[in-house]
C-alpha cells in the first residue's frame, strides 16, 4: 500500500510540473503583458506623478473593499470547497440593511436622541457603528440560513451541484430583492449615517468644501477612504489572529483539511462551517455598508460586479489562502483604477476578467495557493 501511494504521488507531481497544456502561451503572453503594462504605467507616472498617485489611491479604495468580500469567498472555499456565488449578494443585503436603518428608521440618530448631552461627534460614531453592526448581523443571519437551507443538504453531493445551487441562491437574492415590495429594482440614493469630508493635498492638507471640485493637479481623498482602509486592514489582522491563534480558528483549518478526523477530535464540524460562513458574511456586510457610503447609490444588482471581482481576487491570490485574498484584492483594485485612469472606464471590467482568464491559464492555484493535494 505505501509503495502504491508513492507511485501515485510521483505521477501527480510530474503532471504538475508539466502544468496546464497551454501554459507556455500564457506565460509568454503574461510576461509581455507585464512588461507593456509596467512601461506604460511607468511612463504615465513619470509624466504626471500626481495623477498617478490619485489613481493609486482610487485603486486602494476599490482593493480594500474587494478584500473584505474576497475573504469570505476564500474561507468558505477552504472549508466546504464551494464557490459561494451568493456572497456578493450578501454584500448587497448589507448595503440595503444600512439604507433602511438610516433612511427609514434613523437608527444612526439614537445616541443623540437618547443622550442629548453627549458630544455630537461621539453620537455620530456610536450611531454609525450601530448601523454597521446591525447590517453585519443581518448578513450573518442570512448567510448562516443560506448555508443551512441550501448548502448543508448538499454537503456530500458532487461540488457542481452545490455550485449550481449557489448561483441559484444568488439569483434568488437579486431578483427577490428587486420585487417592488422588497427593495425594488430602482437605483436608490443612499444617505450615509455620517457626513463625508474630503481633503486635497497641495503644500499640506486642505479640506474640500462640499459641492466643489478639488483643484486641478492635486491628490484628493475622503474620510470614507480612510475608514475603508482601516476597516479592511483591521479585519485582515483580526482574521489572521482568529485562524492562527484561537481554538475555533485551528478547528477551521483542521476541518478544512479532514472533516471525519476533525469529528474524531470532538469538533462539531457543522458549527465550524456555520462560523466560517458567519465571519465571511460579517465582513461582506461591513464592506457593503462602506461601499454604499463611498458610491452613494444602491440597487439590487449592486453586489454582482464587486462580488465577481472579489472572486477573481480570491482566485488570483490562491483560493483558500487568506493573505492571498487580501493581496489579490489589492492587485485587482490597482488593475481597475489604472485601467480607468489611463485607458477608459468601460475597459475596467474587461481587464478584471481577463486577469481571471490569465490566472486560470497560467497558474490556476494563484499566487499563494498550494497545488491541489491528493487526499483520501
Amino acid at each position, binding site marked *: *500500500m*505505501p509503495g502504491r501511494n508513492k507511485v501515485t504521488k510521483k505521477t501527480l507531481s510530474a503532471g504538475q510540473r508539466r502544468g496546464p497544456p497551454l501554459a507556455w502561451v500564457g506565460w509568454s503572453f503574461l510576461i509581455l503583458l507585464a512588461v507593456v503594462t509596467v512601461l506604460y504605467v511607468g511612463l504615465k507616472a513619470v509624466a504626471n506623478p500626481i495623477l498617478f498617485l490619485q489613481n493609486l489611491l482610487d485603486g486602494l479604495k476599490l482593493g480594500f473593499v474587494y478584500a473584505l468580500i474576497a475573504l469570505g469567498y476564500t474561507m468558505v472555499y477552504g472549508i466546504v470547497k464551494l464557490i459561494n456565488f451568493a456572497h456578493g449578494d450578501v454584500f448587497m443585503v448589507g448595503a440595503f440593511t444600512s439604507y433602511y436603518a438610516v433612511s427609514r428608521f434613523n437608527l444612526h440618530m439614537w445616541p443623540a436622541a437618547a443622550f442629548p448631552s453627549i458630544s455630537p461627534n461621539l453620537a455620530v460614531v456610536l450611531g454609525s457603528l450601530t448601523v454597521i453592526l446591525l447590517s453585519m448581523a443581518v448578513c450573518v443571519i442570512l448567510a448562516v440560513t443560506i448555508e443551512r437551507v441550501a448548502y448543508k443538504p448538499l454537503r456530500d453531493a458532487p461540488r457542481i451541484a452545490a455550485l449550481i445551487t449557489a448561483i441559484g441562491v444568488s439569483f434568488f437574492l437579486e431578483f427577490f430583492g428587486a420585487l417592488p415590495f422588497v427593495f425594488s429594482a430602482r437605483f436608490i440614493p443612499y444617505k450615509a449615517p455620517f457626513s463625508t469630508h474630503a481633503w486635497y493635498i497641495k503644500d499640506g492638507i486642505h479640506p474640500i468644501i462640499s459641492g466643489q471640485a478639488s483643484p486641478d493637479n492635486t491628490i484628493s481623498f475622503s474620510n470614507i477612504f480612510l475608514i475603508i482602509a482601516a476597516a479592511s486592514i483591521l479585519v485582515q489582522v483580526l482574521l489572521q489572529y482568529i485562524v492562527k491563534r484561537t*481554538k475555533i480558528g*485551528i*478547528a477551521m*483549518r*483542521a476541518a478544512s*483539511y*479532514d472533516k*471525519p*478526523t*476533525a*469529528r*474524531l*477530535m*470532538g*469538533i*462539531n*464540524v457543522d458549527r465550524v462551517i456555520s462560523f466560517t460562513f458567519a465571519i465571511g458574511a460579517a465582513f461582506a456586510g461591513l464592506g457593503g455598508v462602506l461601499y454604499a457610503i463611498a458610491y452613494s447609490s444602491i440597487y439590487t444588482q449592486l453586489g454582482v460586479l464587486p462580488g465577481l471581482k472579489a472572486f477573481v481576487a480570491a482566485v488570483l491570490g490562491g483560493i483558500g489562502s487568506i493573505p492571498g485574498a487580501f493581496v489579490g484584492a489589492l492587485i485587482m483594485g490597482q488593475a481597475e483604477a489604472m485601467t480607468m485612469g489611463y485607458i477608459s472606464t468601460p475597459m475596467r471590467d474587461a481587464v478584471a476578467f481577463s486577469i481571471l482568464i490569465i490566472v486560470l491559464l497560467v497558474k490556476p492555484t494563484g499566487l499563494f495557493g498550494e497545488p491541489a493535494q491528493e487526499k*483520501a
Partner: protein
Amino acid sequence: MLRVENLHVYYGAIHALQGVSFNVEQGEIVTLIGANGAGKSTILRTISGLLRPREGSIMLNGTEITTMPAERIVSMGISQVPEGRRIFAPLTVKENLTMGAYTRKDQAEIQATLERSYKSFPRLKERESQYGGTLSGGEQQMLAMARALMAQPSLLLLDEPSMGLSPLLVEEIFRIIVEINKQGTSILLVEQNAQMALSIANRAYVLETGSIVLSGDASEIAENPDVKKAYLGI
C-alpha cells in the same frame, strides 16, 4: 464498559457488519483481528459515531451511545487513533495536540496533559512547531496516539497502529500501548499484525466478512489451529 450488540452497518447496498456483538471490560486490552475488508475499521468508525448502524446498539458504561454524534462520543470518553493516522498535515504538532483536547475546557489541565504527552513522546516536544505533514511515519503514529490521549479517554480505539512501521518501531508502539493501558485506559486494538496484537491483549475476537467467527482469551486464540493458519502464517 463497552458493550456492542448485534451491530449491522451498511455502505449503500454493501452489508459490511452483519450482527457483530462483543464487549470490552474496564482495564482490558481487547483485540479485533481479521483479514483486509473484514470490517474492523467499520466497527471502530461506528463506535466513534462516524457511521450510523442500521440495527444494534452500543452502550458505554450503561449509557446508550448508538446514535450520538461523533463529537459527543469524544466527551463521553472514547477516542480513536484512526487507520492511516490522519494527522492534520497543515497544522503544527502542537496544534494537532490542541485539537485532541478540543472537548476539554480547563486550560491548566490541558497544559498538564500536554506536558505528560511530551514526556511519553519526547520526539514530539522537539518537533512542537513543525507541520504534522512533515513528520515521518513513526512520528505521525506517535502524534496520532498522543493526540487521542489529549482527550483523556477512558477507552482508546486503535486502528492498525503498526501499519507501515519498521519492526523496531512496532515494538516501541506496542510497548507504549501496554503503558497507556497500565495507566488505566481500556483499549480496543484492531490489528493485521495478529501475533503482536495477541501477545499484549487479554482477549481477542476474530472477524470474517462482517461477522465474529471466534472469540476467547488471547492466548487461547493464539493457539487455535485455524487462526494459526490464517493469521499467524504458521
